[in-house]
């Protein structure tokens, strides 16, 4: 059903949440298309058939027709009741996560996503999930409103700062799906993307155990992980490409001109100051867009990040 309109929708990867949506959309498309075609044909037919022949044309007095008007009020009414019921049923399903769902916590901020697992692992802008099992996301925002949208799953839910909201899905096959933020949240709203990565259950378990608590590895590895989790990479590239903020590539030791005209060489203290008090010294050509990470990053975290930035040479 509805194959005529399949080109409108992305491939469905979570049939348990999306199949009902696709079906009701196909139904509305088909019915709408038939009625629209009828109206359009009637318009064109009348315009040709009853074209004005002379200024003295006489027209009959037809004021109304109760039977006709009741018919074309009641039939659409019945049709929309069907649509209401169908849409409502699909929505109830979206609202009700299965009991055995695997739970992941989501924190949204300007402009990125952090996904936290039960074992303490944290990943930025990438949520790894087991395929073939329902997954429930419990979401909260650290600042303004955001919205979690995965077109391939037909799910969307606003993320609020003052309460938890949830959303669930079940990916059937391993693979990647695109996540968008759909509630406007400022400068880099359109870069607030993430990916759902579905693994086979075994792969997922091994992936999860590798993550540990996020504190393992060398300082450079921890720093690399941190700039991903904390969303630094949304605004600062590591490969020299242009983003909202200066690139991290070759940053350490670079001579930068500030907005007030002074110049300085980027060292540990400048990076530290920029993380804790971003507005203090802004590189020329950029604006003060960043929020302070005071309280979100420990001194050790900052040192790890600096170590990682040092490795990014031109």
């Amino acid at each position: 059903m509805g194959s005529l309109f399949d080109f409108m929708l992305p491939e469905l990867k979570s049939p348990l949440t999306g199949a009902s949506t696709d079906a009701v959309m196909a139904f509305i498309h088909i019915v709408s298309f038939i009625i629209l075609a009828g109206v359009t044909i009637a318009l064109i037919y009348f315009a040709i058939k009853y074209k004005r022949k002379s200024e003295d044309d006489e027209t009959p007095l037809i004021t109304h027709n109760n039977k006709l008007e009741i018919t074309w009020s009641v039939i659409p009414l019945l049709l929309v009741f069907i649509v209401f019921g169908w849409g409502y049923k699909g929505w109830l399903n979206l609202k009700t996560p299965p009991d055995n769902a695997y739970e992941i916590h989501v924190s949204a901020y300007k402009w990125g996503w952090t996904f936290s697992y039960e074992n303490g692992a944290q990943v930025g802008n990438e949520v790894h999930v087991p395929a073939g099992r329902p997954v429930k996301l419990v979401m909260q925002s650290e600042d303004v409103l955001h919205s979690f949208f995965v077109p391939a799953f037909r799910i969307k839910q606003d993320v609020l700062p003052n309460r938890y909201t949830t959303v669930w899905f079940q990916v059937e096959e391993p693979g990647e799906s695109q996540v968008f933020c759909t509630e406007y949240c400022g400068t880099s709203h359109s870069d607030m993307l993430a990916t759902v990565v579905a693994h086979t259950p075994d792969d997922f378990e091994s992936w999860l155990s590798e993550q540990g608590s996020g504190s393992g590895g060398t300082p450079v590895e921890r720093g690399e992980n941190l700039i991903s989790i904390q969303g630094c990479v949304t605004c600062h590239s590591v490969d020299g490409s242009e983003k909202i903020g200066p690139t991290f590539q070759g940053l350490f030791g670079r001579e930068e001109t500030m907005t007030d005209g002074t110049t300085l060489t980027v060292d540990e203290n400048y990076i530290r100051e920029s993380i804790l008090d971003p507005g203090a010294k802004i590189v020329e050509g950029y604006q003060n867009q960043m929020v302070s990470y005071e309280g979100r990053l420990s001194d050790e975290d900052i040192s790890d990040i600096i170590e990682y930035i040092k490795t990014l040479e031109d």
Partner: protein
Amino acid sequence: MSTAEVTPESTGTKKTLKVKRYKPSEDPKNTYLTDEKGLWAWMTTVDHKKIGLMYLGSVTFFFLLGGILALLLRTELLTPAKTFIEADTYNQFFTLHGAIMVFFVLIPSIPAALGNFVLPMQLGAKDVAFPRLNLASFYIYVIGAIFTFIALANNGLDTGWTFYTPYSTESSSSVIWVTLGVFILGFSSILTGTNFIATIHKLRAPGITWGKLPLNLWALYATSIIQVLATPVLAITVLLLTMERALGIGIFDPALGGDPVLFQHFFWFYSHPAVYIMIVPAFGIISEVITTFSKKHIFGYWAIALSSLAIAFIGFLVWGHHMFTSGQSAVATTVFSFLTFLVGIPTGIKILNWVATLYKGSIQMKSPMIYVFSFLFIFSIGGFTGIMLGALSADIHLHDTYYVVAHFHYVMMGGTLISFLAGLHYWWPKMTGKMYNEFQAKIGAALIFIGFNTTFLPQFIMGSQGMPRRYYNYIDQFTIFHQTSTIGSYILGVGFLLIAYYLAKSLMSGEKAGSNPWGSRGLEWQATSPPDFHNFDHTPVIINGPYDYHRPMEEFQLGLANEDKDH
């Protein structure tokens, strides 16, 4: 000479008036355009026709501004990454495009500009009930506009036209200037609505019963009710938002124990009825134009008249359908979805009534009629996609994507703006006394139709595939849709330039229009073109209905003149 029994609204008692056939002069000497000269006379005029033209001028100016912003936005979207402007500039542009088009163009376009001009004339009245208040409304609109320009000059605005909290309480742009501007602008809208309600109730010429009220006035009446009932809630909402930013009162700020979803309820309680403030007057124009150019009585007068009122009332109960993904309660979501479908029915009934009006008519495809045909096609698509968005599970997928952007433009631009163009082309000869070049007008209408669909049809597809709205960058798979859409917007731009060209030319050197170039039965066409200061040289008496096309013009004009000149 004959007599007629009518009940003048002023006395409420039946009396018999002597009447005779009335024919307006085809060569008026003293018109509203010539009786007062000079800028000052225009700026202080209380004549509803001049005030209507002043609104028309301002609306055109703001449309140009909003339109240029739209073209810049579409140009930026030609490529997935940066094309020529920065992300912050882009965010400001789409915010201003939305705010300007909604608050400064669509809301005043039909009621305040065209409505002001034709409403008293269709009632056979000399002016609106409160002419000075009418002028005051215009200046309040201007002051609201000045506030918005102050914001533009001073950091701009980047919150989106919806001002969602808490982003709007944190944003570094000048939110306060714009919210104050919108607050002030709201009063312009409220006072216009109040004025129109009083006028329609109390200033009808003898013989105009509610059943002989032109459908355009039923539509304006329904609109005025919404303006009076909904706009004050917007006023208090933006006032609270202003206080939130100025004093941190915390009602909408989660950090202080407030609730951002409450803001959305407040905002949409106004802003959903506001879309009916924009679209319902369009229905009025369609009824007038379609009967004139098919020379036929309207089919289902009461169905169309009362469905406007039904839309106005049910329209107040559906605001929550903007918030299906916001985290509002499940009961609210269910009820709002259900009522949303109910509001779709009266709209569908109207479309079918208009199509039925064409049956056995005498159809002439002049440019206003081409716009009506465009409207019927485009607005139907807008309606069907509205049903799609009312279906809960489908809305979850489509909310805040380009599908919603396309739907909104199909109803607001394809509905309101195209019927505004229909009305403008229809009443232009009456307003100016001049004709425009009909061939160029047809080309213009075709360009608008083609450009419009090229711009917005691809947006349905990419929205459905997941392209979110308000995105500066986008992923590569959407490129082809964005580029097609941008090309369509350029076609639209050319179309509007052409319209501006031939209308300006018509003003300078247009052929003289007769009093009734379309052969309409509307009362406004029984005045001279352009009308004189008092519209009619004496109060008309109405015996025939506004859609009595089955009567020859001679018979119809009988009774328009009042022999008792004792008013």
